[in-house]
């Protein structure tokens, strides 16, 4: 609930008819204004997500969506375009004609330039008209789905034209990347928090909308068997992997500026890391969870400039084969400089200086054009303190591993030791597996469905708070600074379609570990 909503809710008490139906709460009417409504994100993710919410009757009947962009288009052609996009990208395939026809009546396109005052005055007029037509109650969401370089300007102009305060609740959703370093993130926060209250700001990291990422919290805090061993006394190391097999997919210019550290590590990996390592929150309220995430991010050991080389590895992919297809080296991709030193692979070792984790290495890695698309969090437990079955198992027995698979093939597995049938005492590792797909045939909603619904409901739990994004940037800044001061002319390379550069293994080998093969 926004500030206004909260005040009203307290004045009239909770809805007594809602008890027992809490999870099905439908949001109040809204106008969703997409800055970049003609862009790729709107077509691929946002409109299909809205349609699927509508399909599940989770949207308010009074919802209007206004796409903003530069290219000329009328409402009708915008609707046709979005129908085509939803047909291609929706997880539920081709939309139901009848449902779509009702849904599209709330879709509008407004042409204008984000950088001029006039565009916002036009928007204001359009909004007034659309809000009356749809009875949205004046609740507005501004979704920044455009080049990040435009974010500060858009926010400033929303403030100058008074659109930051509307007749109902007003919220702003800010897409990633949130800044390109600590300084720009601080600047963006300063502008955003100057124009909007923090309770109005929703910084998106779509990883948090994924069912399996939320399951990390459930696994940890809805079970009693894991939390007692979730600490340095029982855990030897943690590996977090976010691997992609795809390359740049036409976004070479963007990637050249970003690199994997900004594109994946500062946001998605840091979020996974925080969820795995945080202390139990006092409740499931947005701020309780975010407080704990910030605390653990702040406990990450700061890397000194001379420690970066020993704890961080970067590389870029060379040519190779992926899925049986020959692919070019990163430096030969469109939009990439032939002498580029942008990293497409990152691996690092982090430590957390707190009571729970002191001395436990966290190995993080991410990259493009790796052997397969796989995201996973693996917790490796200590070896048994004393092996009773040493005679039959001279090499010892492998440690227990709890692996949470984020994508694909979402699930959780535990490896443990079992006696091999026979007269001796041979011990073999076996795997106990829980697969989402096998247990729950219900399809998971797309991350954007969950997140858009939460914005409408005013639930900030799965969004990044100001201090959280700053803490995540602080954690990676020593690396960025060390790289900037480094004048290498060429990064180590790895063959596309493999598991990254060979040297990445050295990071773990020194500690007696190996990267998991996923």
């Amino acid at each position, binding site marked *: 609930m926004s500030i206004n*909503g909260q005040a*009203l*809710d307290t*004045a*009239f*008490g909770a*809805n*007594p*008819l*809602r*008890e*027992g*139906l809490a999870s*099905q*709460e*439908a949001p*109040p*009417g809204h106008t969703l204004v997409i800055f970049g409504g003609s862009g790729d994100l709107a077509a691929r993710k946002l409109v299909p997500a809205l349609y699927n919410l509508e399909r599940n*009757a989770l949207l*308010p*009947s*009074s919802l209007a969506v206004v796409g903003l962009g530069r290219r000329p288009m009328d409402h009708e052609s915008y609707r046709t375009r979005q129908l085509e996009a939803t047909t291609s990208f929706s997880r539920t395939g081709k939309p139901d004609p009848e449902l779509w026809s009702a849904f599209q009546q709330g879709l509008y396109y407004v042409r204008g330039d984000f950088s001029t005052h006039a565009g916002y005055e036009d928007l204001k007029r359009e909004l007034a008209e659309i809000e009356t037509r749809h*009875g949205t*109650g004046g609740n507005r969401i501004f979704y920044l789905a455009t080049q990040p370089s435009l974010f500060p300007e858009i926010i400033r102009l929303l403030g100058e034209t008074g659109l930051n305060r509307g007749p109902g609740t007003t919220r702003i959703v800010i897409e990633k990347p949130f800044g390109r370093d600590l300084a720009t993130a601080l600047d963006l926060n300063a502008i955003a928090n100057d124009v909007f209250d923090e309770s109005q700001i929703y910084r998106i990291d779509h990883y948090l909308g994924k069912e399996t990422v939320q399951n990390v919290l459930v696994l940890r805090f809805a079970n009693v068997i894991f939390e007692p061993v979730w600490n340095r006394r029982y855990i030897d190391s943690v590996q977090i992997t976010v691997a992609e097999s795809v390359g740049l997919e036409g976004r070479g210019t963007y990637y050249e500026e970003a690199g994997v550290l900004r594109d994946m590590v500062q946001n998605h990996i840091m979020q996974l890391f925080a969820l795995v390592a945080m202390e139990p929150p006092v409740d499931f309220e947005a701020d309780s969870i975010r407080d704990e995430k910030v605390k653990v991010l702040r406990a990450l050991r700061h890397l000194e400039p001379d420690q970066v080389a020993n704890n961080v590895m970067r590389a870029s992919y060379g040519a190779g084969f992926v899925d049986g297809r020959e692919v070019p080296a990163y430096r030969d991709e469109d939009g990439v400089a032939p002498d580029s030193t942008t990293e497409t692979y990152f691996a690092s070792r982090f430590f957390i200086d707190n009571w729970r984790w002191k001395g436990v290495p966290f190995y993080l890695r991410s990259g493009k054009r790796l052997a397969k698309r796989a995201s996973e969090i693996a917790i490796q437990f200590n070896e048994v303190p004393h092996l009773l079955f040493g005679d039959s198992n001279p090499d010892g027995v492998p440690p227990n591993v709890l692996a949470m698979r984020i994508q694909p093939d979402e699930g959780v597995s535990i490896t443990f030791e079992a006696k091999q049938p026979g007269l001796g005492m041979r011990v073999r590792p076996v795997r106990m597996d829980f*697969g989402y*797909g*096998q*247990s*729950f*045939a*219900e*399809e998971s909603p797309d991350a954007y469905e969950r997140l858009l619904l939460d914005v409408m409901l005013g639930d900030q739990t799965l969004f990044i708070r100001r201090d959280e994004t700053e803490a995540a940037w602080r954690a990676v800044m020593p690396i960025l600074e060390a790289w900037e001061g480094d004048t290498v002319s060429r990064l180590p390379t790895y063959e596309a379609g493999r598991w990254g550069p060979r040297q990445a293994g050295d990071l773990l080998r020194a500690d007696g570990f190996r990267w998991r093969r996923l």
Partner: protein
Amino acid sequence: MNLTTSITDTLPTLARLREQAARQAADAGAELNAQMLLATIVARYPHPTAWADIEAETKPVVAAYPGRVIALVNDPDTAQSPDPVRVGLLAAQRSDGASAIRGELLTAALEGRAFEEGAAIAASWSASGVPTVVWWNGPATTDDHLFEDMLDIADRILVDSSAMTDAAADFEVLGDIVMASHHARVTDALWLRLLAWRQAFAQAFDQPAARIDLEHVRSVELAVQQSPGGNAAALLLVGWMASRLGWRLDRRTTQGWRLASDGHAVDVICEPSSTPNVLIEMVRLSAPTSRYLAHMPSPEDIVVDCQSDLAPITHVAVRRPPPTRPRLRLDDLLTGGAHYSVFQQSVTLARTLAAA
């Protein structure tokens, strides 16, 4: 793929079927990924029912929630059948197009006393370590031996109050059962059928500004199917509303009941509906300056029109096709009969209204 067998040989036959399926899958180069069972479902069929019908009804449920279904079928002709037990695997299409085994179906055709003692079969065939859920296919009862046994061996029993024949007596029984501490918790398919109505009203009053009207409701009018099921549905829905809003029974009236709210009366009026195949067709809540009309413009929709003398009309639509029987059963499995106290309180009030 299914085989007939005898009661004692049922589980070994099931194991053989599984092995056979695994071999076939391996021959076809596929992996059989189907050992997971999340529930035992005991389905009671009080009348002879064909294997194909039972399969058609249970398959969509286990496709979404893998389980072992034990169907106990009351069949007076079973003496003629040498093999009263049939065992099969339930396969379903996965999203990637491959077929996967999602469950097991064990049916036993039983007669008279054997049917009444079916709980013993259910207990010995149940998968271990997972909850046992009974689909009773009828209203809760206290004079049925099988039901009494199931209260002990099962974890949950899904009854269906829309099959009630005598509302006063049947709600009395249901009220006693849901308030008692049996091993099994009793949930109700009728309660699940009313979910869309409950949601529609909850949604209409999610707006804080509308909430104030709830304290001033003066009348509730319902258009209800002229049948015992319609009557039971109206009682449970009004019971729900009254328990949520703190209304108490004042007295019975010719068309319904007069309830007492804080300082004023609420008249509940039931009228016969004009649509034969829905239990409840329309519900209208009236307060001095506003009216909330929930109705079904199509079998797929419930819409609430909120009309206030102080504000323009707003619509709240809850789009929900009426749940099919397998869907109701799945909902029950997935929600685990959650928010039980709301159900208990609603039944208690429905019982008071029915007895008035």
